[in-house]
């Protein structure tokens, strides 16, 4: 677990540096997802071959909350799928690191996402496709909790259940916030668990910043025999105290002082 904590710390530093460099990007939503991505890519969950990102028997990860892509890019750089030299090309012209994930341009990116909800429906297609092809690969999709307001989410969940996609794991980054504020004040997504269960989705919950809890839930999801959602309780902006649970950091660029302060908080101390 120490190694995973250390990796999450490094990835948060990477993300802060990347966003600071281009002065654009979503820090809060990236930070709330950081342990989830770390567990998937570095905790032995995803079965991948970094030397062959298109290996046909690989597991698939779809970042349905595509705006958190700085976190995904940082993880793909540290797995070696994206060269380290591209770290500071996020959102630049001619870059492979687009403002939202682009499966055509970027190695390791499984789905073109960003329009909320679409990623989960694409993941449902992948899970069904892998079953048709008789592959044992699994599909993981990470959605936001505000994203659950999208109608396509519920279309996709209906189909996931109808097709008994037990190879599909839906991770929900439950940070209780969306772009415009608290979910309870803006769009309303609750009660998440009851809604998912009504759609015949198996539900697990965990602390989305605690690796042992996350890895336990991800393991349990493999044997549920149904499409499974893991509701990950998280904190938006997690890791830098003045960003935590502060909605303005959904998409705000730090000042020079805030950047220094943030990097200092991420200096050698695991969260």
């Amino acid at each position, binding site marked *: 677990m120490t190694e995973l904590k250390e990796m999450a710390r490094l990835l948060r530093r990477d993300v802060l540096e990347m966003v600071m460099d281009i002065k654009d990007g979503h820090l809060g939503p990236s930070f709330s997802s950081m342990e989830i991505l770390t567990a998937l890519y570095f905790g032995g969950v995803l079965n991948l071959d970094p030397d062959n990102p298109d290996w046909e028997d690989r597991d698939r990860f779809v970042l349905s909350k595509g705006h958190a892509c700085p976190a995904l890019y940082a993880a793909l750089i540290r797995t070696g799928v994206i060269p380290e030299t591209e770290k500071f090309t996020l959102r630049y012209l001619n870059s492979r690191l687009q403002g939202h994930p682009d499966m055509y341009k970027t190695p390791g990116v499984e789905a073109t996402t960003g329009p909320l909800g679409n990623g989960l429906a694409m993941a449902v*297609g992948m899970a069904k496709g892998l079953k048709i092809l008789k592959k044992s690969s699994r599909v993981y999709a990470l959605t936001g909790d505000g994203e659950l307001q999208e109608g396509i989410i519920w279309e996709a969940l209906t189909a996931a259940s109808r097709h008994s996609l037990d190879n599909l794991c839906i991770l929900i980054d439950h940070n209780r916030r969306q772009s415009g504020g608290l979910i309870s004040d803006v769009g309303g997504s609750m009660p998440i668990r009851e809604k998912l269960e009504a759609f015949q989705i198996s539900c697990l919950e965990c602390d989305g910043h605690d690796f042992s809890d996350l890895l336990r839930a991800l393991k349990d999801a493999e044997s549920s025999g149904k499409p499974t959602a893991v509701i990950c309780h998280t904190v938006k902006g997690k890791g830098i105290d003045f960003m935590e649970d502060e909605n303005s950091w959904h998409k705000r660029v730090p000042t020079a002082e805030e950047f220094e302060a943030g990097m200092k908080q991420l200096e050698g101390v695991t969260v």
Partner: protein
Amino acid sequence: MSISSTRRAVSEGILDALEVDKSVVLVSSDSALVIKAQDIIEEYPENYVEMGISEQAAMAASAGLASCGLKPVYVSYAVFATLRACEQFRNAVAYPGLDVKVVGANGGMASGEREGVTHQGLEDIGIVRTIPGITVISPSDAGQVRKAARAMFDIPGPVYLRTGSGRDPDFWSEDTDFIPGKTRSFFDSGSDIVIFAHGFVLSQVKSACEVLTEKGIGVKAVEVATIKPLNEKEMLGHLHGAGAVIVVEDHNVIGGLGSAVTEFVCDNCPKKVVRMGLNDRFSESGSPEELYQKYGLTEKDIVEKAIKLLQD
């Protein structure tokens, strides 16, 4: 005039494709029976993905299936595939250039028949034509739809195939081939006017050409079944020496083949172009004959438009 089902023809084309390629997958949003796909469901149950009434998820799931190396064909009504699922068609399918084929039934007001405006694809071609990377095909009868539905799997990347109501007039003989990207002349008595058309209006275009010829007007009629990309070389050939141009289609005059031809003529060989279609308004329920009469797409309308064009 004999009538056949272009919807059933889609199923037959997909079955033809499945005979040689087991990676073809039919994706339905409770729309499989729209194309009378019982044979596919029974013979190839593994190649049938029913998503339920959910056009957006069906389009995005098709992208997911294609990303695994399968060849999904998503079948829906033209109006829902291109309007309700438009954003998924653009962002999940066309932008990554995935190998997804989309079939839109009830293309045009006649094809939507008595269902009314909500179920008539009146803007579908205009919508998909503005999205980069989508091949747009609108065949003109059941025999052509079957061949186009087979041929579209050989076209790399996303394809939009427009079809009709299930009671569509036959035009071409059964042995006529369908080659994506090719245009085809079906009448030629001179070059005073060249008429471009697609879909289920070819028979009235042809009879209008006969009337015009009797009146001493030389006219050439060309089917443009592949609306995007336009076959520029062949279009230049058809336009060479033509006095004026008319485009006839069952679609809004904005965005469809009329717009595509106007853009091409302006760019390459400026001359007068008249667009005939639904004149930027909604249609209504009615029989195809009644609708074409009320909204100005009969043989008589085409003749009058041509004569007026030459007088202007």
